[in-house]
């Protein structure tokens, strides 16, 4: 025991009184489970005793319980979680005996069924004997220290931005709360460096404004807003010509938001504040009526590194040392202003990753000596050499002396909410250990107040990796998949078995038997109850949670009371207010609406949307009369072109002239009969729409056939002919839609897709999928409750069915090769397994699940929702994070 609790005990001697206190508190253990409570539930056959509480936050916990092997990312967050726990604290690991960067555990056990009761006395022993120790050590793994250091470097700047990472695990160590004084400076930069989840990022966050000693930057505002009538902007050489900032306020408002933007589409994120001669707000918002905007290679995805080295703020080089440290190499933002001559001369030679929101209101630039370096008459797209000679004849700092808190100045650089109000946005990460979300799921959100502006769901689990033993002996696959997914063990075992049977040529055996189907339905009941317990916790109904857990254990142990369960499901439906609360949560934002927000370019002339991602879903039967000239970026006099994208509302694309869609990602989902040829001149651009390559086995709803789901986003293109999307990024999961997969979420939207309808054993019993309309959290709850009731009936029916009891044995010959595949309707939706066996060994394996598709829908389903609704929406989807990394 001596070596235990070195990092968990409080410093001090274990006096008699303290020992008695420790004994008292150890009788009631508060455990924070990692990755989550639901996994812990699956490892136990009985409910935990009342003396063990699972808590929602590490600050409430005495025990950090780590279960199984964690991925590097999750282990790091577990370490932050442990660091946030108050002493005395006990670290318990079930499974591995060491996970870096966590230190060796105080208590270790094997990860096996009912492991926790066996170690309770040992945990209590740690607290009883070592809640205080004379010799303790701080828990300071390298990763934690780096985070702290990073956060400390922020100190002294008003970032106006909160980057709260890893909630649930509450990682506040790297928060950007720079509220410190800056040695007499007022550097209200509002630079928003949101570095969430960018593993390769080099973002020290440190706006090191060297040599600003004694300067007052309180009034220097680089206002580029309201640039109506810009023509031919070249933002590729953004020069902020703010040299010598004596007495200036560097309220730049640059939003270097590098958080979780992989694959992001930032087509219109500039907010250009007023270009008056006195206040330069470098806030890139609202490029309406831009003409000649060059967004070529505007790709915010996968920022491995950023390079701001060329970002010069100042006529004589604003000493923004931090820009040299940024590494934005992979960013492609040609949205910088070159404003030579004026004090607002931007130069951004390197590609920036500024988030430039809403290009609106840029009217009125002409006439301010803006030499944009292009021919307005011709509306060409060559914006190089674009000069904004704003002729700012000196800055008027009189209105912004220190101490004056002007709301206009304070909110000048802030992003705009949909209601038009400038609001401070926060980057928040919920998970991977958030109590209201599946363990291991990380929800990165951008909050506008407490409204979700943007959300992205990611898994912190390791990608699927087959061990050599399974590769060499495919017959081990069912066991492997079952253990890998304890929360869907039966589904994965059956899936592997069926795929092996399929490989062995036993097609009849690839169908589910009554016994197997009954086992699957039992798992469905148990899985839905487990989900219900977590969902109820999030909703705040402890009664529902307790009842769901009680039934969960009973049905897992085959002692379930069907009548009691049915009564429970009925009572849920009648809980006061529940329907009202849930009906408003989880309905997806219409794709076209989202699109509309991104195309608010009234009056653009010569727009280059290169690399923009236009996710055009649901374009059935519409013409794409773009009227664009896609040839070699020369867009001359396209003043009358119109984007008739069918269901998409492109009406705000008025007066665009000369668009360049080079590299445009037109993700044409569900196009029912497009005409991509009217008015298009694709010229030399890589925007070919010939030889539409849709892959195989297309599951089409309108027109196409032989389209394989994993071929990407070109399902359901009824009527497409000879399209060639090679070179375009067509396989974005973000473009998936509900009807593309099956599961309770899909069925709650009225789609009856369910793989069980293909199984004879279900059909014979007159089985039909449970569906509801609504496509919200309430309808998802109803579908799952309906499925519980249906599964109970099916199990009762299956017990009366006679016939083959189990699947036939499968053998894998040592020679030859072939493919095996199977699909199964798991509790969360379809699971698809495909593999290739070569000479008796697994050569290739591919798993697909509904969870990945649901994760892709998180953003549209949570957009503009209040935080609680967004969490409810995500929880209602029942995403299994392990399935996101297949």
């Amino acid at each position, binding site marked *: 025991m001596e070596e235990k609790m070195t990092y968990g005990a409080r410093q001090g001697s274990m006096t008699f009184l303290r020992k008695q206190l420790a004994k008292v508190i150890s009788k009631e253990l508060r455990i924070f489970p990692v990755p989550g409570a639901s996994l812990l539930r699956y490892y136990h056959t009985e409910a935990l005793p009342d003396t063990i509480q699972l808590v*929602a936050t590490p600050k409430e916990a005495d025990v950090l319980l780590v279960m199984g092997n964690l991925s590097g990312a999750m282990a790091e967050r577990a370490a932050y979680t442990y660091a946030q726990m108050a002493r005395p604290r006990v670290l318990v690991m079930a499974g591995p005996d060491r996970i870096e960067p966590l230190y060796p555990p105080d208590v270790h056990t094997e990860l096996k069924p009912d492991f926790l009761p066996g170690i309770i006395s040992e945990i209590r022993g740690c607290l009883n004997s070592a809640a205080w120790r004379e010799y303790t050590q701080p828990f300071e793994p390298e990763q934690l220290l780096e985070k702290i250091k990073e956060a400390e470097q922020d100190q002294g700047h008003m970032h106006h931005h909160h980057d709260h990472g890893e909630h649930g695990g509450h990682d506040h160590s790297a928060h950007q709360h720079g509220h410190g004084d800056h040695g007499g400076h007022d550097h209200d930069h509002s630079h928003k460096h949101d570095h969430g989840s960018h593993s390769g990022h080099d973002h020290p966050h440190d706006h090191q404004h060297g040599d600003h000693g004694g300067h007052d930057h309180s009034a220097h505002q680089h206002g580029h807003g309201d640039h109506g009538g810009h023509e031919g902007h070249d933002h590729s050489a953004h020069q902020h010509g703010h040299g010598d900032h004596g007495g200036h306020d560097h309220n730049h408002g640059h939003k270097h938001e590098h958080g979780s933007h992989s694959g992001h589409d930032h087509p219109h994120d500039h907010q250009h504040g007023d270009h008056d001669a006195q206040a330069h707000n470098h806030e890139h918002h609202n490029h309406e009526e831009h003409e000649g905007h060059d967004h070529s290679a505007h790709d915010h995805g996968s920022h491995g590194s950023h390079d701001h080295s060329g970002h010069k703020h100042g006529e004589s080089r604003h000493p923004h040392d931090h820009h040299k440290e940024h590494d934005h190499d992979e960013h492609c933002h040609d949205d910088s202003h070159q404003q030579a001559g004026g004090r607002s001369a931007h130069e951004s030679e390197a590609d920036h990753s500024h988030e430039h929101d809403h290009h609106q209101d840029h009217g009125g630039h002409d006439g301010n000596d803006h030499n944009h370096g292009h021919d307005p008459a011709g509306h060409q797209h060559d914006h190089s050499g674009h000069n904004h000679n704003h002729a700012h004849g000196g800055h008027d700092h009189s209105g912004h002396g220190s101490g004056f808190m002007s709301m206009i100045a304070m909110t000048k650089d802030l992003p705009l909410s949909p209601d038009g109000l400038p609001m401070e946005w926060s980057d928040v990460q919920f998970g991977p250990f958030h109590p209201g979300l599946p363990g291991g799921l990380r929800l990165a959100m951008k909050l506008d107040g407490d409204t979700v502006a943007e959300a992205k769901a990611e898994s912190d689990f390791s990608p699927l990796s087959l061990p050599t033993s399974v590769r060499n002996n495919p017959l081990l696959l069912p066991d492997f998949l079952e253990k890998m997914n304890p929360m869907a063990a039966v589904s994965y075992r059956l899936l592997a078995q069926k795929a092996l049977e399929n490989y062995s040529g036993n097609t009849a055996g690839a169908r589910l038997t009554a016994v197997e189907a009954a086992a699957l339905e039992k798992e469905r009941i148990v899985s839905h109850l487990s989900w219900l317990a977590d969902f109820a916790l999030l909703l705040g109904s402890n009664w529902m949670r307790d009842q769901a857990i009680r039934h969960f254990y009973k049905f897992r142990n085959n002692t379930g009371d069907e009548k009691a369960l049915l009564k429970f499901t009925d009572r849920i439906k009648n809980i006061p207010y529940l329907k009202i609360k849930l009906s408003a949560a989880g309905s997806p934002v219409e794709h076209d609406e989202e699109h509309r927000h991104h195309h608010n370019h009234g009056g653009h002339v010569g727009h280059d949307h290169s690399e923009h991602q236009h996710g055009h879903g649901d374009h059935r039967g519409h013409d794409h009369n773009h009227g664009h000239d896609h040839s070699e970026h020369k867009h001359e006099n396209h003043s009358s072109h119109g984007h008739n994208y069918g269901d998409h509302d492109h009406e705000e694309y008025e007066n665009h002239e000369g668009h360049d869609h080079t590299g445009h990602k037109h993700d044409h989902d569900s196009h029912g009969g497009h005409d991509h040829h009217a008015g298009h001149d694709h010229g030399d651009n890589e925007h070919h729409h010939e030889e539409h390559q849709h892959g195989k086995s297309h599951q089409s709803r309108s027109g196409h056939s032989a389209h394989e789901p994993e071929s990407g986003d070109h399902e359901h293109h009824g009527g497409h002919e000879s399209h060639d999307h090679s070179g375009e990024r067509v396989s974005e999961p973000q473009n998936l839609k509900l009807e593309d997969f099956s599961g309770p979420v899909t069925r709650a939207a009225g789609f009856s897709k369910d793989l069980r309808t293909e199984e004879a054993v279900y059909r014979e019993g007159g089985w039909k999928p449970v569906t509801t309309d609504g496509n919200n959290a309430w309808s998802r709850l109803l579908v799952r409750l309906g499925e519980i009731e249906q599964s109970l009936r099916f199990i009762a029916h299956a017990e009366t069915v006679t016939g083959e009891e189990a699947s036939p044995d499968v053998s894998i010959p040592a020679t030859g090769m072939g493919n095996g595949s199977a699909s199964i309707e798991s509790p969360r939706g379809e699971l698809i397994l495909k593999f290739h066996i070569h000479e008796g060994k697994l050569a290739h394996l591919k798993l697909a699940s509904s969870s990945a598709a649901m994760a892709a829908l998180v953003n549209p389903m949570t957009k503009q929702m209040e935080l609680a609704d967004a969490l409810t929406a995500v929880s209602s989807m029942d995403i299994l994070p392990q399935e996101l990394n297949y």
Partner: protein
Amino acid sequence: MIIGILITLFFLAGIYFVAVLERWSLSGTMQWSSPVRSLLRLFIQEEIKPRKHDSIFFEAAPVFFIAVILLTISILPFGEGLVLIDLGTGALFINAALVYVMVCLLMAGWSVNGVYGMIGGWRALAQLIAYSMTVVMVLTATVMRAESMFLPDIIESQQSLWNILYQPIGFILFYLSAMAIAFLPPFDLPTAESELAGGVWADFTGIRKLLFRLGRLALILTLSVAVVVLYMGGWLGPWLPGYVWIFLKTLLVAASFFAVGRFVPRIRQDHLLEYHWKFGIPLALFNIFLVGGLLII
């Protein structure tokens, strides 16, 4: 002196029972020793200060919070003659003091320099502003009937008929508003564990957290006593001494608070505000007119 001791004993016993009830609402089981263990656990727990916290608010918020509650409890009668300060404006003082709960929560949320605390603070601000309005309006109706702001007078005014029956609309509004002010489930938006992992006090540990916990329990007790005094006849009741009646009624009200919270899901923020401003305020006004009419009749 004896009154002070008796009130203290009632107060501590009340806190204990409220803690047991709170535990029941969470787990569904009565755990009689749980409050003691929880108290000791927080007592010995390490104090953690978040990075870059606002030290003044961080230190002041828990103390201020419990002080506000103690101020309120000091004017509430625990029995006939069992009141620390028989304030002439007692009825009004309840609301005036409880408004500072909102200030404390906002201070706490702000001080930890974290978004969850801050969101919790915003929620508390919106919630408590809204429901304090209702409280003061329905209090007016009870004062109208008693023709006095002295709380003992309000109890005496219910000799013939308790206010719960005389002005049921006012009772329902006050009951729900009390739950909202104490941010009890389903109105626990400022602290919502499953959403904000504790919200305004997520980052407090040790003694500071203990003060918040005790303050919250005292707040629930205070509001339960207030419901009893204003609407359930206070110490009025047959056979048993008045203080026993108040104690039993208070526990009943507190238990009902937790029972509602255990079954009903957390209310949405927009609904919470919408229902209040659209229905609560008009109903409270209607209640005043109704009571006024009844009094004239």
